[in-house]
């Protein structure tokens, strides 16, 4: 198993460099001069050129890439030209907000989607199965930001049950439990939207992997032993289908973080997605690059974690 994990890790290394090179290149061909807002407008053009030269702005891209990456490994992701703060400081507080959202969504959607998918498979072609299937199709097909806009209009504007945007009530300065409740009140709608979408694919996946397990030979063997239908389904079939479901859940953690970009912007949720979108508008190079890098690292890490978990839950890999 140790060998297996090392092998997975080695595969991720070229992928990591490939992705970072592409991200770095992309962001550096964005139009506009990121430093113009930082420099004293009184400086002469020649002085500006000289300063840009000094910080390596005109170095060839590969040189800039290596410099950027080695600094990034040392924990220095650059300096935000818009916030006039180190990028790590800017990202720090936003990352927590995004994690709060993503982790709640993941937990909720697993708790709802996995049982629903299992029951849907066990009672294939029942009314519940059809209902869940239609619901899943809707969740898979609706654009997240459109659902977000609809929910915002109905529940925040028309009914007024929830705040329109942000993280907490501005100027209220709640503390303790009140602050927590206030935060929860703001988080309900974004969590609702992301959960609906996350649930849909997870439910479909659970259903089909459960259906597959139910028609395997070992399920028939279990029945032939005289085990009750309950044991056959909820021990033999379920345990097998959960191997791939666990993997999917782990991988989706990474995708959730980056997938929330649009939803975050609709709800004005101050997370990584909103931050990155604004940073693009502000031509804040270092910040955009850092956000993209961080989200990529999360995806790679969740893929690695998925591989490791897979090895843990599947004895075929555990005892190799």
């Amino acid at each position, binding site marked *: 198993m140790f060998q297996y994990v090392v092998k997975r890790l080695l595969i991720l290394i070229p992928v990591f460099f490939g992705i970072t090179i592409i991200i770095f290149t992309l962001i550096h061909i964005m139009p506009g001069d990121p430093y113009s807002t930082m420099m004293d407008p009184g400086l002469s053009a020649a002085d500006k050129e000289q300063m840009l030269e000094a910080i390596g702005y005109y170095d060839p891209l590969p040189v800039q890439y290596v410099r950027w990456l080695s600094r990034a490994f040392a924990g220095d992701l650059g300096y935000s030209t818009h916030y006039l703060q180190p990028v790590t400081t800017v990202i720090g507080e936003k990352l927590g907000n995004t994690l709060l959202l993503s982790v709640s969504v993941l937990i909720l959607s697993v708790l709802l989607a996995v049982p629903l998918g299992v029951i849907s498979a066990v009672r*294939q*072609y029942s009314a519940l199965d059809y209902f869940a299937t239609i619901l899943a199709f809707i969740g898979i097909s609706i654009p997240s930001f459109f659902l977000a806009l609809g929910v915002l209009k109905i529940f925040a504007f028309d009914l007024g049950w929830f705040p329109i945007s942000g993280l907490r009530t501005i100027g209220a300065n709640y503390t303790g439990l009140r602050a927590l409740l206030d935060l929860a009140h703001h988080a309900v709608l974004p969590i609702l939207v992301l959960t609906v979408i996350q649930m849909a694919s997870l439910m479909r996946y659970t259903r089909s992997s459960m259906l597959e397990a139910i*028609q*395997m*030979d*070992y399920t*028939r*063997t*279990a*029945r*032939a*032993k*005289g*085990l*009750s*239908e309950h*044991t056959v389904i909820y021990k*033999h079939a379920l*345990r*097998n289908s959960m*191997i791939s479901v666990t993997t999917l859940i782990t991988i989706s953690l990474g995708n959730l973080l980056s997938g929330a970009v649009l939803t975050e912007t609709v709800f004005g949720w101050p997370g990584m997605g909103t931050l990155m979108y604004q940073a693009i508008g502000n031509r804040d190079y270092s910040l955009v690059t850092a956000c993209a890098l961080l989200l990529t690292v999360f995806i790679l890490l969740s893929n690695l974690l998925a591989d490791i978990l897979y090895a843990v*839950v*599947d*004895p*075929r890999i555990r*005892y190799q």
Partner: protein
Amino acid sequence: MQENNILEVSGLTTEFHTLSGTVRAVNNVSFSLRKGETLGIVGESGCGKSVTALSIMRLLDRRFGHAYGEYIRFQDQDLLTLSDKQIQNVRGNEIAMIFQEPMTALNPVFSIGNQIGEALEKHLGLRGREKKQRCIELLRSVNIPRPEKIVTEYPHQLSGGMRQRVMIAMALSCHPCLLIADEPTTALDVTIQAQILELLQRIIREQAMSVMFITHDLGVIAEMADRVIVMYAGRIMEVVPVRELFAAPAHPYTIGLLHSRPSLVAKGHKLTCIPGMVPSLLDMPPGCPFADRCPRAEADCRSSLPELREIAPGHAVRCFHA
């Protein structure tokens, strides 16, 4: 029920519902199995032999197929009318089954001990140390080396032959009086095949079990069976004691089967194959299903289905011209 029979099947019919229509995989099949007898069931793939076994065990997937008939008497019960709970108490306990594919028939995520132990716990109420001890004994009885270690291992760590031994141990765990073996050696190498057959023969003899042995391999039949049922397109074509099967086969299909297998004894004979194809189960001709491929077929064969008639004691055949 006759006293020396352990199983009596009457009028068993199994249908599957497919997109193209309803298919009769087993068509009005009746037979009986005597105590201590090994009954071979032979036929090409798709002839209904495995479906017959699954129907008796009531293991068909209810969404796609169902079996009905007059009765399936096993000891004092009619298996067709038992409730789900009652049939569960029969399965693995009084009737056990061994499947063809040892690679997929065992659950990959549970240890061998866990999987054998399930039946012991369910039917015999064994738990803990006692259960584990019994698992180890069972593994030893099917000649598995180091059973104390194997009991904690997983199926993928064993070879195909070992897995089939585990399947056999599992089937024997509750001392069933009827064993249904569905092509138990087909997926194995020839040398392993011989070992497994030998093991099965020993166990059957020792425990005086009644056996339904399903195979397409006439060589295996010669070694294992006392009496043989030949099936074709869902119907029984011939019922014959094993010695007569090879000495005096009556049905043209049975004769065709015998001629199409290579034999070390009868050198110089040409290996022949039966011309034509098995009729589609969707589109069964009204007469004898074998008529189109039969060298002896005449007009009556195509218009009406012959009855199964006795031509010698214990030897019945479904043919007008045999």
